[in-house]
């Protein structure tokens, strides 16, 4: 890098990119920051599960079957949130369970967003048969109730983490695709797109370099909201008994398993339920903050 920078450019100005500004606005929003930190904490919890969990989440001990949380009669402080029907530590299982929820949430949304964005861009910008084809496919998939589609796919592919991710991605990409297409339809009429064409920019340049950066923030916002949905969807699948394989703990399957003991061992299904609620809530709050920060026209 020997090219001398001949024109001094003030760094303070450089970083005032629109994205940077939005991030700063986000950081200034205390409520959302707290939520984002909670989300991060959950992610850390998932990553550090082996070090955080007080017990082996798979270690069964039938003698501790349905042991109550620590503060209740029959509870024990080393099993803070009590034990499940096989005497496994609920806290440890929740900590490990976060791996499933977060992996699935992230993976599904990432893959779906990439696919959806590319297809949405193509449909919105190229129009014509590409658009008709993609839009019809979107219509067809939208006509399927989400859970039923996922359940049928799971029945087809069999259980397992990758298959859950696939089963959810199959329909999930529709959401970013629609958002992107809508945004592209608006953006392609903008004069800056015309300006790029006027100076001779090729199609791909316009799609990916001119339009994409401008529609990215709604996409990011929608993706985070969808992540919250996906986590609940995974939990619902697990609840219906077609989620991850045991003994892997998923919050949804923990609630489902615990449901049998609801009448008095309420802790078995209540705590994982609360875990879902909190993670999803934090993601939602954070995504609302993102939305406010990235798209001030939404800020109410």
């Amino acid at each position, binding site marked *: 890098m020997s090219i001398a920078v*001949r024109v001094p*450019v003030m760094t303070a100005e450089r970083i005032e990119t629109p994205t940077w500004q939005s991030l700063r606005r986000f950081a200034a929003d205390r409520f959302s920051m707290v939520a984002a930190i909670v989300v991060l904490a959950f992610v850390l919890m998932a990553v550090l599960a082996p070090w955080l969990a007080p017990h082996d989440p798979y270690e069964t001990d039938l003698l501790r079957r349905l042991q109550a949380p620590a503060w209740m009669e029959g509870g024990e402080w080393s099993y803070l949130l009590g034990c499940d029907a096989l005497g496994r530590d609920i806290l440890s299982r929740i900590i490990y369970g976060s791996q499933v929820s977060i992996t699935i949430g992230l993976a599904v949304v990432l893959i779906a967003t990439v696919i959806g964005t590319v297809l949405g861009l193509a449909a919105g910008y190229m129009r014509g048969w590409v658009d008709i084809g993609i839009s019809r496919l979107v219509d067809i998939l939208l006509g399927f109730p989400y859970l039923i589609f996922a359940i049928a796919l799971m029945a087809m592919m069999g259980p397992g983490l990758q298959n859950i991710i696939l089963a959810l991605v199959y329909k999930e990409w529709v959401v970013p695709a629609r958002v992107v297409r809508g945004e592209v339809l608006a953006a392609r009429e*903008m004069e*800056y797109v*015309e*300006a*790029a064409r006027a*100076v*001779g920019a090729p199609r791909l340049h316009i799609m990916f370099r001119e339009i994409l950066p401008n529609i990215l923030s709604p996409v990011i916002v929608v993706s985070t909201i969808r992540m919250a949905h996906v986590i609940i969807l995974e939990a619902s699948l697990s609840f219906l008994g077609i989620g991850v394989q045991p003994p892997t703990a998923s919050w949804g399957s923990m609630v489902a398993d615990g449901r049998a003991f609801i009448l008095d061992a309420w802790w078995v299904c209540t705590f994982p339920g609360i875990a879902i609620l909190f993670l999803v809530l934090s993601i939602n709050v954070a995504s609302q903050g993102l939305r406010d920060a990235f798209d001030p026209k939404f800020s109410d």
Partner: protein
Amino acid sequence: MNETQSPLLDVRNLEKVYHLNSGLLQRIARQPALNLRAVDKVSFSVNAGETLGLIGESGCGKSTLARTVLRLHEPTSGSITFDGRDITKLPHREMTALRRRMQIIFQDPYASLNPRKSVEEIVGLPLSLHRIAQRSEIRDRVVAMLESVGLKSSHLGRFPHQFSGGQRQRIGIARALILNPSFVVCDEPVSALDVSVQAQIIALLGSLKRELGLTYLFISHDIGVIGHVSDRIAVMYLGDIVEIGPARELLRAPQHPYTRALLSAVPQIDAGPKRERVKLSGDLPSPLAPPPGCKFHTRCPFAVERCRQETPALRKVAGQGMVACHLEQA
């Protein structure tokens, strides 16, 4: 203006039709496609070094004409000849190369700059696309261009939202001019700006034209602005050019009733004797269903039966201008 010299741009019978509601399913379910003839067989030419002003009411097809001439929208029929070369059907690749010579400045300085790109990227983009300059050179050329439109090199890393409207328009001008074009379309370059800033931009465009020997197609709906920048003026009404002629002549003695109404309706700041107001009644007809015959007949105070039936063609009248009107001397 030397009449013998061949024009830089020559447009013949240019037509642009937008098909609304033409989706497959709309066609099944709804009425036949709506055809909007935004530009209706328009012919004119622009000589090298001159400014042709184009004026007309909102929606009459000025922008469409501008974009079609540059083939940003594909023309429906007619021909466009640029510098002696028919570009109507030029293949994409060659058209791209030709874009170096014909550029456009847009109306809305807010919408025409990509908000996610820095000034350097925006102004430098044409250079890198056309592989005109080395990477290292690009910055120098961008800086030079910025300076000639009145911006500073310290603005390079800034983003559009950090500029005022007038400054943004300067960026747009810099982008259009960095490829050294010979022909520039200015599509209402000042109408989104404040009066005091409008004057700055008009002055800038004027001095750039002189320095770089540019040819302008200058669009505005402000006849005061058009009058000041143009050598010749064309007046559009609902997709037609109804009158075209040297600026002074046209402003002093407008021939077409519409031009006269237009001129008389412009509020004047000067006390002096007023032009007699040609009062129009009624509203602009919908471009989807333009009236038959002379499109202006629904509002024309002088319309006669013939106007309702026969479409007048542009023809020479006294002086150098041309008028599309059946009335001999309205």
